[in-house]
């Protein structure tokens, strides 16, 4: 086995920033807005680096698809312990329509090219909340998948994954190569400290174009409109249960 792990990291709008819809309702304002690495991607990077520190895998490669600024996100992953980075350049219109289908095609192509043993992704991105890229990548590669992982342990050429599911926790054993997606409780990501950021400047980030990987970026989806959620209406206080029932009947709820 190559001992190589691909980790996908996505640059998203920081979770604390108040989002603003563009005046033409075509999307969300991103210019100059604070961006950071998707929190679930941070957890994915941390897991990969932990595996390397336990000497269970040999190399961690951080991958990001996006414009120039995605390189900053890859730098952060390098500072957390990834060995090298791959920046798949997607800009302009292509970037606006970039979604899980396109990214999973890219990840599948890279996995074959890099002879990866594992792909670790965040379970979902906090901007689109799709929760699809990991699953689609596994399907395209015909690899087993361990999604919503809250615990991962490597055992020879098998991986034991404890998954967080609606009913509780499910433990599965899958064979490598495999795709894992990280859930919240998998680990606590380490900080990217300044000495590591400085060292990361010396690590390589390769530039790749989707065309070089033979990936077609055309989107099957067209965004018609983006709107803010409706303003929350003020509630009405009622004094007694009878009032409540009366009001519910009035508005046709019961």
């Amino acid at each position, binding site marked *: 086995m190559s001992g190589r792990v691909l980790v996908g990291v996505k640059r998203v709008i920081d979770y604390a920033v108040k989002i603003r819809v563009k005046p033409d309702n075509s999307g969300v304002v991103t*210019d*100059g807005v*604070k961006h950071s690495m998707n929190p679930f991607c941070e957890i994915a990077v941390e897991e990969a680096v932990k595996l390397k520190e336990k000497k269970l895998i040999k190399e961690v490669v951080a991958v990001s698809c996006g414009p120039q600024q995605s390189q900053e996100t890859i730098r952060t992953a390098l500072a957390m312990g990834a060995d090298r980075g791959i920046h798949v350049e997607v800009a302009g219109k292509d970037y606006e329509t970039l979604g899980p289908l396109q990214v999973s095609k890219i990840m599948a192509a890279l996995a074959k090219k890099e002879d990866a043993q594992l792909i670790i992704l965040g379970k979902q991105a906090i901007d689109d909340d799709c929760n699809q890229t990991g699953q689609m990548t596994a399907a395209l590669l015909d690899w087993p998948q361990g999604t919503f992982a809250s615990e991962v342990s490597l055992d020879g050429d098998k991986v034991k994954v404890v998954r967080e599911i609606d009913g509780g926790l499910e433990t599965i054993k899958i064979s490598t190569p495999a795709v894992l997606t990280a859930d919240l409780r998998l680990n606590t990501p380490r*900080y990217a400290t*300044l000495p590591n950021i*400085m060292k990361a400047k010396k690590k390589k980030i390769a530039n790749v174009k989707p065309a070089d990987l033979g990936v077609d970026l055309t989107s099957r989806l067209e965004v018609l409109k983006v709107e803010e959620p409706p303003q929350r209406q003020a509630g009405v206080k009622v004094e007694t249960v009878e009032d409540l029932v009366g009001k519910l009947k009035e508005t046709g709820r019961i």
Partner: protein
Amino acid sequence: MFPASRYSCQAHRCIRALKTVPTEHTAPQLYTTLHRRTCSSVSTPRITTHYTVHPRDKDSRWEGVEMERFADEADVVIVGGGPAGLSAAIRLKQLANEHEKELRVCLVEKASQIGAHTLSGACLEPSAINELFPDWKERGAPLHTPVTEDVFSILTEKHRIPVPMLPGLPMQNHGNYIVRLGNFVRWLGEQAEELGVELYPGYAAAEVLFHEDGSVKGIATNDVGIAKDGSPKDVFERGMELHAKVTMFGEGCHGHLAKQLYKKFNLRENCEPQTYAIGLKEVWMIDEKKWRPGRVEHSVGWPLNRHTYGGSFLYHLNEGEPLVALGFVVGLDYSNPYLSPFREFQRWKHHPFVAPTLEGGNRIAYGARALNEGGIQSLPKLTFPGGLLIGCSPGFMNVPKIKGTHTAMKSGMLAAEAIFPKVTAESLDSETAGLHVPEYAEALKNSWVWKELYAVRNIRPSFHNYFGLYGGMVYTGIFYWILRGKEPWTLKHCGLDANQLKPAKDCTPIDYPKPDGKISFDLLSSVALSGTNHEGDQPAHLTLKDDSVPVARNLAIYDGPEQRFCPAGVYEYVPLETGDGMRLQINAQNCVHCKTCDIKDPSQNINWVVPEGGGGPAYNGM
């Protein structure tokens, strides 16, 4: 929580026993020192857990934790990625390239990206940028809005008295540009990176390092991974040390490291204490019909009384969208503890001259920052062995013009020019390990910065008279406009802003109108708009020297002014869980790093220290 009368004696004893159990488990140091000091029977819950107040070498939880720091050497380290710091870095690299010398310049900035903590009106005077980059237009500097109209008013509750903007008056803006300073700073950052400056946003300078001879050796960045109670987490890591021949401190108004340096090197022994104001700002997307790009509006008067210094600004930007930047400044030497600068700002927007511009518009940004008003009288000694101060940190703001960016940039450039020959010299000719560069202060005295600040030095202090605002305007008219500041005397300020508050019992509460949700807004939704956030599990960076002082003094005498002057709702006096008495709750995550609390706290008990780098507001082009 449980009214004593409702329970039997036994139950009461039981409840009290249950309540004492938690205290036994916590470290004894939490309560003992406070119990010895306070004579009241109510024990003050512990508020401050930061290591600057509770040192870690005496803390048992830190035993055995690796405290070694990784160190690196640079030629110059700059603290602060604002106009001053970036101009200094750029100038240094320009000189290095000119003279074909190698120079490692490292800049650390606490914001996660350059420009994210920058907030200003702003009307930029291009004098400094013309010197730094004569070709700024070709380089794409975001100066898109030349000032076309300049309007000044004195407001009364319902009316407006226009004041003609005669050429020669300090507020006259012909030739200046309305800019979104955050975008300008971001552009400066890009220029700096191109020139080879190493920029490290997201890393705050938390500690000044000293050589054995007492000169400044450099800085250390913040530690990460300390829990809210002050104990180390699994992800704890020490900050990094950056050593330099000279360290430039450009932390902006009321920097926390500068505060330490003033004490250590006695830099303030021959100057007056700095006086400040708080500036609150919003950016609105307005109705296109109301948009007049290039229009600059300033006002004084309502809603402030004639003894409270302050006023408003409203600038129409011209960057494609109908945006206006508007805000309100209140001098922090105000005396009424019931005054809330935030609420003054909100009610000013309802004035008949202002509200029509905002009607039908949308608020898209909010923020606040302290600014300095001391001028020349409050300038400290600028240089010390191993370092120097630049920008708004020592304070070069031209108060009547309300402009400090051009002077901050010039101070950074002059500092760079002064230290360049010294740091690139073949042999370091210095008595101390850290270089002392007094030539910087000399250069500043001979520059246009000094001439400009000298001419306006008496305008701000002239407001301290019986007629307040009107006396000040008359003084400005005579001595500045006609005589150009050549009068032979220099007026003094009133002393520390923190000492100006009168006790609450001598003042009347102000009846502020409720926000209407369309033009005026409440505090918490405003704070959300600043995008501010901090890692929740870290010690509060608003540290108190003495945890019992807020309730014992601030609340008791001044009715807790920090609940009103903080523009982010960090300070709240909430009832104690036991039912009797209040306690101070510090919502550190809301902090927008404005520094007003450190300035205005009447007990000077609050010490703002830098939180984990990357935290704080996420301003976008403010």
